[in-house]
């Protein structure tokens, strides 16, 4: 018995109109998804995965068209449908779960209304029927107190809750096919893990088919049965998930998997393999294999002759001339760090006279670049009027009595979920926020909390790299103007000639060629922009660079490049890092010392090695276990933090108590946990004695089931 697949796309081609001509964007893509199946669609930004996903819903940009092929839902072609017919299918049989739930929800209506309007439209329900249906759906996505949540507006909900609302909206009509467009990319790993469980369960229950679009190979491995790898609008490989991770065959897949940093102990001396070059724009694809220019095993033939998508065995397809050799393991596909091979000269403006490497820095330099003692920061205040009206206290203590020391030439990693205070702490150190309390010193000189009180020399020593380089580069300045201005403002170069020389050095240091001087940011890719941001941060040879999620907005292959660069720059410029990330894989690659923060407090600190191995704080344990792994041998522990953190100012006990899967009793809620020393300055703040914690974590004792439902924050 062959079951009718729910979605079939056959030889689908999509074109875009650029000026007066049509450019082919999606080329000959075929996909089938059966009932209950989750199909992964992987690709980097610009690969066309979102275009394809939306096109499968027959939703195209005004300047796009389907030039070839067919899309069938339950055997019926969608391409012949009129717009009103599509309106009856959208939201009923074919639903979208979008990437950014806050942006996808209308800010002016309650979430209940936005869920209810779907059934009012498609099933002709009355207002009250649709509303109670919406509340029931919210309960189904495990929101406790669904009635109250339905009355809320999108901005009043946390990211995880917003995502649940969007899922409820999509499943409200029991659709046949769901398109999940990077639905958890904007979430914390812990929230992501919970949402992924929910997807799996609900999709199974509804027997709906789903297309899961993601750039995160770990998520795809956890979620999907089959996956398709898209590169430059073409399918590179399509196969059952298990096989791909065990034995990837396509060189591109191999490269993607290799460039993901692993949570590995002692990995900090290695370099990440990277895929050389950048993806070509759609208009400049050659006649050969689209991946050939970046492929380490490409032959001459690969440049001239396009490979076919061939079936290897049972549903496993690959588009590569050399798959036979790779599959037979006679042809190793090795990616190195291609940037490391570059031989461009590099020297440091500040220390260029005589000395060349950081090891030669004079002995008297202090051991710690930065010492921050007992820093606290509270946001919001209570005005007289608020007190008169007896409005609730809206103050949030973002950072609570935190001490951090950054050792010279090392990297301090700061991890935690959003709302953990890690960014606020960093901003206090840089001076973008003024700490309420605490004492900071930089290179043994007192560092005043307010930026305006800091002497120029100190300001120069701390620089920051932000998450989104597109937002931090002035679109109206060329890269050269930008670096020149930075150098001049920071007084980092003595003469105009030195400025030009330094700019050239900086560009070389971030492996950008000289002609980038005259380019504007919009001519650069995301990774290149971040490299410019790095060059700018290093312009004045700072002692401390604070990097706030510098790779979170980037693809894995680009992330690898940036992480390698950060490593190089640290060594060559003699800087130290405060590296903030929610991605524990990226942090582990760079950091020597880790601090785990939760709700403004430090829960655990120690060397990266110690923090990642047991015993660790139950919160750290949960963070690590929530990372979707790409390692086929790794068994996920699946610790799920169900409740979401709530921000309250006064609580006497452990801040993690409400969510802790290893909570031992009232003591956790009532008393502040003690610091427990695990040796080598590795410290854990927990009521559970370390021996016991170690025992619990080593024999894999299943964690106690926490609350079943989410409590709205």
């Amino acid at each position, binding site marked *: 018995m062959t079951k009718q697949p729910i979605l079939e796309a056959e030889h689908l081609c999509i074109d875009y109109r650029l000026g007066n001509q049509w450019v082919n964007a999606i080329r000959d893509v075929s996909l089938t998804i059966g009932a209950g199946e989750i199909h992964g669609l992987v690709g980097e930004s610009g690969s066309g995965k979102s275009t394809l996903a939306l096109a499968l*819903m027959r*939703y195209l940009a005004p300047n796009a068209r389907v030039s070839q092929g067919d899309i069938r839902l339950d055997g019926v072609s969608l391409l012949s449908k009129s*717009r*009103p017919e599509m*309106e*009856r*299918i*959208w*939201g*009923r049989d*074919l*639903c*979208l779960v*979008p*990437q*950014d739930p806050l*942006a*996808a*929800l*209308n*800010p*002016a*209506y309650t979430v209940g209304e936005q869920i209810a*309007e*779907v059934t009012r*439209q*498609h099933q002709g329900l009355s207002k009250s029927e649709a509303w109670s249906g919406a509340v029931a759906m919210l309960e189904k996505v495990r929101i406790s107190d669904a009635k109250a949540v339905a009355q809320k*507006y999108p*901005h*009043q909900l946390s990211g995880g809750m917003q995502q649940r609302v969007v899922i409820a*909206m999509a499943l409200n009509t029991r659709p046949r096919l769901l398109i999940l467009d990077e639905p958890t990319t904007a979430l914390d790993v812990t929230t992501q893990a919970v949402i992924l469980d929910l997807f799996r369960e609900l999709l199974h229950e509804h027997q709906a088919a789903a297309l899961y679009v993601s750039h995160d190979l770990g998520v795809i491995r956890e979620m999907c049965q089959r996956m398709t790898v898209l590169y430059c609008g073409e399918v590179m490989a399509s196969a059952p998930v298990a096989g791909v991770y065990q034995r990837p065959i396509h060189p591109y897949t191999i490269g993607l998997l290799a460039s993901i940093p692993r949570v590995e102990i002692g990995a900090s001396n290695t370099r990440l393999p990277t895929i050389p070059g950048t993806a070509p724009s759609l208009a400049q694809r050659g006649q050969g294999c689209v991946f050939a220019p970046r492929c380490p095993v490409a032959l001459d033939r690969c440049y001239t002759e396009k490979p076919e998508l061939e079936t290897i065995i049972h549903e496993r397809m690959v588009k590569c001339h050399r798959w036979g050799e790779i599959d037979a393991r006679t042809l190793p596909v090795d990616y190195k760090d291609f940037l490391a091979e570059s031989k461009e000269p590099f020297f440091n403006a500040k220390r260029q006279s005589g000395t060349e490497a950081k090891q030669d820095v004079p002995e008297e330099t202090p051991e710690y670049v930065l010492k921050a003692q007992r820093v606290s920061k509270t946001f919001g205040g209570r005005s007289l*009027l*608020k007190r008169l*009206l007896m*409005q609730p206290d809206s103050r949030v203590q973002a950072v609570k009595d935190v001490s951090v020391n950054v050792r010279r030439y090392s990297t301090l990693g700061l991890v935690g979920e959003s709302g953990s205070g890690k960014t606020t702490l960093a901003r206090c150190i840089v001076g973008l926020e003024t700490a309420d309390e605490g004492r900071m010193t930089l290179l043994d000189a007192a560092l005043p909390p307010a930026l305006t009180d800091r002497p120029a020399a100190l300001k120069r020593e701390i620089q920051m790299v932000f998450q989104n380089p597109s937002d931090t580069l002035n679109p109206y300045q060329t890269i050269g103007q930008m670096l020149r201005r930075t150098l001049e403002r920071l007084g980092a170069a003595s003469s105009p000639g030195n400025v030009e020389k330094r700019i050239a050095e900086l560009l070389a240091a971030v492996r950008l060629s000289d002609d980038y001087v005259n380019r504007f940011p919009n001519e650069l890719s995301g990774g290149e922009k971040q490299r410019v941001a790095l060059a700018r941060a290093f312009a004045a040879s700072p002692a401390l660079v604070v990097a706030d999620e510098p790779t979170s907005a980037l693809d894995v292959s680009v992330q690898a490049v940036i992480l390698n660069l950060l490593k190089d720059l640290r060594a060559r410029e003699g800087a130290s890092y405060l590296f903030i990330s929610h991605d524990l894989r990226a942090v582990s690659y760079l950091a020597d010392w880790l601090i785990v923060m939760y709700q403004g407090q430090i829960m655990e600190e120690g060397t990266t090695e110690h923090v990642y191995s047991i015993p660790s704080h139950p919160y750290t344990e949960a963070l690590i276990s929530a990372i979707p792994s790409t390692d086929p041998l790794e068994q996920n522990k699946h610790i799920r933090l169900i409740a979401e953190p709530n921000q309250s100012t006064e609580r006497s006990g452990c801040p993690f108590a409400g969510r802790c899967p290893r909570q031992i009793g009232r003591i956790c809620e009532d008393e502040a946990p003690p610091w427990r020393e695990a040796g080598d300055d590795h410290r854990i703040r927990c009521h559970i004695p370390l021996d016991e914690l170690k025992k619990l974590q080593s024999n894999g004792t299943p964690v106690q089931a926490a609350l079943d439902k989410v409590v709205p924050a």
Partner: protein
Amino acid sequence: MTGYIIRRVLLLGLTLLVTSALVFALTQIVPGDVARLILGRDASPEQIATFKAQFGLDVSPPQQYVNWLGRFIVGDWGRSFTGGNLPVRPLVLERLGNSMRLALMTLLLSVPLAVFLGMIAALRENTWIDGLVSIGSLAVVGLPEFVTALVLINGLALGVRELGLPSTSMVPNNTLEDWVRQLILPALTATFVLLGYIARLTRAGVLEELKKPYVRMATLKGLPRRVVIVKHVLRNALLPTITVIAISFGWLIGGLVVIETVFNYPGLGSLLVEAVKQKNLFLMQAIVMLVVTIYALANLAADLLYGVLNPRIRLG
């Protein structure tokens, strides 16, 4: 929200207090002695002293301000210097009523039309419809009011007599129909001034909202285009328009001097010009205070409405 309203109302009070001082100061620095100007060059010192005593002008300026403000608040707005020394208040309030009617009529005509045109232009971006709306509305805004007014008088009142639109407001108006007829041409003239502005703002607002992911989401929920536009897009796109409408309302109340003059319409604007010419102090002060109050109230109403329509402000 309660705290917000209270804060805004307190701020409104403060604004009015500051304006009252400014208004008073302005009337003080008008060159020339008021009493002499009113009574003529031949008035004797005794006559002038009597005049000053009668109108309370014989005390120090700060004292005059306090007296005036105190009386103004309790509703005694003083008497006119001219025309039989009638109390100012009934005269001003009558004119205010007229101005209100004209302003409301104008908004009734201009807002729906402008929003409609702006929306159409946005939905048909870069087509000839868009071009027509954008260029047309700009062309109309550029015309001086008296030109539009004269064109309308010639075209509609005199050209198409069947419409029965009076070209002047100096006709008896007993019925509602008369009222409306009388308002149409001046309101239409003011509409032309506002139209382009509001239409362009709406167009920009709709275009910006159309780009947002929630519009795509609403479409992919299977909602018909009409629902997506009216329920989802317009609701958010019109938020900035509200503020502009409020500011326009203030202008409609006190600033329609030209239109009121051309149509002989007895509004507040022309009365103010009259009062300034006559150095009719209390009349001037009363009108300016009133116009400022209405401006401030309209803005407060707009801000509150903005808050009601925008949950992000209302619920923080």
